[in-house]
């Protein structure tokens, strides 16, 4: 029997794009059987999305052939059938919505298949039910949250009753519960016999698959089970990737807990294998790190904000929200999508002026109509959630110079641009004349950051600085933020991908439905699991390990936010027990 998907020696390049950095796929050959669950991983720009598009005939290979159920994608007569068999959900949810009403959008695909109206209605109902969107049926599609829009896109694909669904970094901009939801839906579909191809930057997602394909610079470098792919950390790192967080943590903890099995991949596995404390029972060492007192830099009091106020579509984004951030501190804002994080950030540099409540930043009162907002914006830089929305010039150099020119920053523009680029690790000569449209995901994020740094701000507001980045770029950005913090820049970071960045944070505020639910150090915030669950937040892995260990009797001190902290504590506990 022929495989469901078969690639024979496929090569592809974007001909209209003369840039040598454009994605190229070379000599790919593999096949996927019906009902498989395959993860496709690789660095930003390694050709994952291009491969996805080759599989449903959106792109045709330069050489070699792609067969879907034996049908060659070269024959345009096959395209309607191929596309009804292989559906695709893209990364940016709003770019794939055709109609302005949810149900109409879901009906688009079946309508293209020429199905009778009754059948379409049935399929729309089923797809909305399956994706938990039945209540959103008649809502305008452009007013949904990112997570909801992504589910609409999935529903639109499911309504075509495909045999295979490709998720093209579908989870990149979603919060942890949104990601879990997409993953569990992929699993349900797979249990119903649908082939799943899951393109992702998150290693913890890729281990959920039964088979992992690794792309590196346009070549298929690995095709194996997750256990095999992640068996050697040096090999996977050579492809610009990393082990999943659970595997990394397990390796570090192995020397303290020799009973841990080798090659742990899943979080659940790791948490279950953690040993009980068998030493002398004693109280946890008191936390001798005294809590640092910060001089206030940002003060928000009872802030409320309603979008589209006075229309039938009004939506309350913030409700009596409070926030305090200290000079030189890194403050985290966490909460599920739609909890008001972005709205709050945009108040802090006066993009949104307070409707009610008080906002004070660096001594500027934003309620006061006399406040010079432009002067404030020079001191308070904001990097947006999706760098695509923030980059508006054609050339990287102009993009970064924009703020310096507008704020008339003293000094030569070229020098300012150069130092801003240095701060994020971009080479001035290589990048200043690059077209912004040819940047890869990681580079784009860095350019966006540099363009904000060019105004030499004292406060840096970051909205989801890690979304959509591969592990290598993620670590780089965190490194640059660390350096900025050392220079004394106040950071306010809104994120739902706090796995690694939490080590940077001095304080965390939890938002839920526009209200501030809690403020505290990372250790305080993440030790209260039950309460976080209510706010729809999954604590970072380290916090979950620590919580589990505490429950099994380990006398761990408070404020363990990184694996390193945990190792230090464990070694002191274990040496104490022996001695």
């Amino acid at each position: 029997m022929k495989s469901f998907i078969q690639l024979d020696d496929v090569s592809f390049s974007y001909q209209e794009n003369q840039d040598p950095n454009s994605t190229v796929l070379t000599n790919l050959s593999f096949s996927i059987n019906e009902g498989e669950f395959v993860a496709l991983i690789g660095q930003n720009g390694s050709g994952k999305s291009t491969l996805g598009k080759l599989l449903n005939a959106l792109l045709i290979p330069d050489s070699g052939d792609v067969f879907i159920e034996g049908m060659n994608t070269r024959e345009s007569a096959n395209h309607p059938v191929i596309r009804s068999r292989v559906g695709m959900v893209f990364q940016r949810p709003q770019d794939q919505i055709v109609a302005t009403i949810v149900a109409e959008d879901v009906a688009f695909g079946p309508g293209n298949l020429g199905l009778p109206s009754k059948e379409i209605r049935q399929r729309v109902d089923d797809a909305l039910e399956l994706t938990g969107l039945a209540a959103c049926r008649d809502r305008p599609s452009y007013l949904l949250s990112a997570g909801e829009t992504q589910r609409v896109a999935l529903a639109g694909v499911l309504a075509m009753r495909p045999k295979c669904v490709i998720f093209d970094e579908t989870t990149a901009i979603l919060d942890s519960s949104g990601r879990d939801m997409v993953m569990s839906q992929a699993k349900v579909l797979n249990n119903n016999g649908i082939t799943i191809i899951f393109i992702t930057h998150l290693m913890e997602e890729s281990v959920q698959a039964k088979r992992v394909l690794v792309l590196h610079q346009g070549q298929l470098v690995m095709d194996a089970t997750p256990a095999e792919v992640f068996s050697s950390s040096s090999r996977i790192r050579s492809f610009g990737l990393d082990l999943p967080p659970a595997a990394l943590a397990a390796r570090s903890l192995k020397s303290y807990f020799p009973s841990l099995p080798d090659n742990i991949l899943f979080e659940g596995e790791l948490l279950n294998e953690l040993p009980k404390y068998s030493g002398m029972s004693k109280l946890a060492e008191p936390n001798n790190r005294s809590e640092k007192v910060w001089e206030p830099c940002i003060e928000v009091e009872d802030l409320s904000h309603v979008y589209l106020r006075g229309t039938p579509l009004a939506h309350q984004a913030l409700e009596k929200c409070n926030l305090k951030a200290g000079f030189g501190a890194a403050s985290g804002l966490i909460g599920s999508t739609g909890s008001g994080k972005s709205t709050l950030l945009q108040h802090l540099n006066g993009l949104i002026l307070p409707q009610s409540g008080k906002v004070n930043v660096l001594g500027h009162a934003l309620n006061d109509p006399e406040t010079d907002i432009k002067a404030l914006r020079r001191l308070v830089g904001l990097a947006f959630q999706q760098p695509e929305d923030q980059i508006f010039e054609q050339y990287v150099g102009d993009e970064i110079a924009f703020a310096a020119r507008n704020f008339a920053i003293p000094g030569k523009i070229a020098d300012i641009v150069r130092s801003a680029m240095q701060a994020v690790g971009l080479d001035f000569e290589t990048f200043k004349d690059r077209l912004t449209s040819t940047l890869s995901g990681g580079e784009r994020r860095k350019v966006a950051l540099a363009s904000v740094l060019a105004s030499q701000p004292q406060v840096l507001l970051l909205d989801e600085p890690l979304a959509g980045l591969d592990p290598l770029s993620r670590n780089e950005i965190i490194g640059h933020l660390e350096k900025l913090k050392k220079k004394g820049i106040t950071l306010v970071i809104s994120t739902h991908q706090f796995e690694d960045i939490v080590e940077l944070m001095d304080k965390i505020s939890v938002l839920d439905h526009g209200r501030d639910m809690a403020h505290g150090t990372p250790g305080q915030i993440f030790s209260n699991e039950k309460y976080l669950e209510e706010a729809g937040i999954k604590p970072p892995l380290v916090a979950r390990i620590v919580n589990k260990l505490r429950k099994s009797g380990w006398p761990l001190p408070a404020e363990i936010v990184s694996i390193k902290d945990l190792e230090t504590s464990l070694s002191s506990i274990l040496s104490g027990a022996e001695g």
Partner: protein
Amino acid sequence: MSDFEYLQKVTVGQYLPLGSWVHRRDPRVKLVGYALLILALTLTTHINGLLIGLAATFLLLLLSKTPWRYALRGLFTPLPFLLILAVLQLFITPHSISSLVVINIFGIEIFPEGILAGIRLLTRFCILVMLLTVSSATLSTLEIIHGLELLLKPLRLFGMQTGSAVMAVQITLRFIPFLAINAEKIAKAQASRGAEWGSRKGNLLKRVRQVFPLLIPLFTNSLQQAETLADAMLARGYAGNAKRTSMIEYQISIQDWMFFLLMVTISVFIILIK
């Protein structure tokens, strides 16, 4: 109100799912009915015709449950342009020799005809904007598409590709709110980095000059999004002129005919009244 909420200011092109009697009418009668009313309001020369049009628009607002404040807010954005046009009317409207000068500003004489023409223009456009607001509030894009598809069907007999034309309309409509959202994002990005958007300073000329750096990225961004959208549409089996079916079947009811007759009667009145 935030300076950046463009979506809030543009009411034309926004559907409000209010489920009123007007919302439930067949898209064909709504399309033709609104078109007739708009045509009549554009053609009528008499102020009485405009007044009937205003009454009809209010009636539609009432029947469709569209909030008054929402409809009126839609007037704010085009109002400055309308006022400029109206003021121009004061000077360029021809007058009869016998009419008397009402006001004389630095030697520029203004006649009653000019004032009347200015008022007429202002009323006409205000009614039209409100009518567009209410018609887009009651016609979802799918209804427009299906309505057009059904109405244009006879043209297929002459070999016209009505399917592609209708899809082009659908995509255009879908992009309106996204343009507003994109414009908001770009303006915010520029404002955060020192452009004058949304600060309380800056005169009108400065504000107008700010628009150009906004338009170019808005255009390129939209093109990029259009490219992804095209991919997404193809991926969901859209194939140009192939025959498409729809989720909803339409049948014209007696109530639909009533609505249609009402609209025709009003339109005829507007044109014929003296």
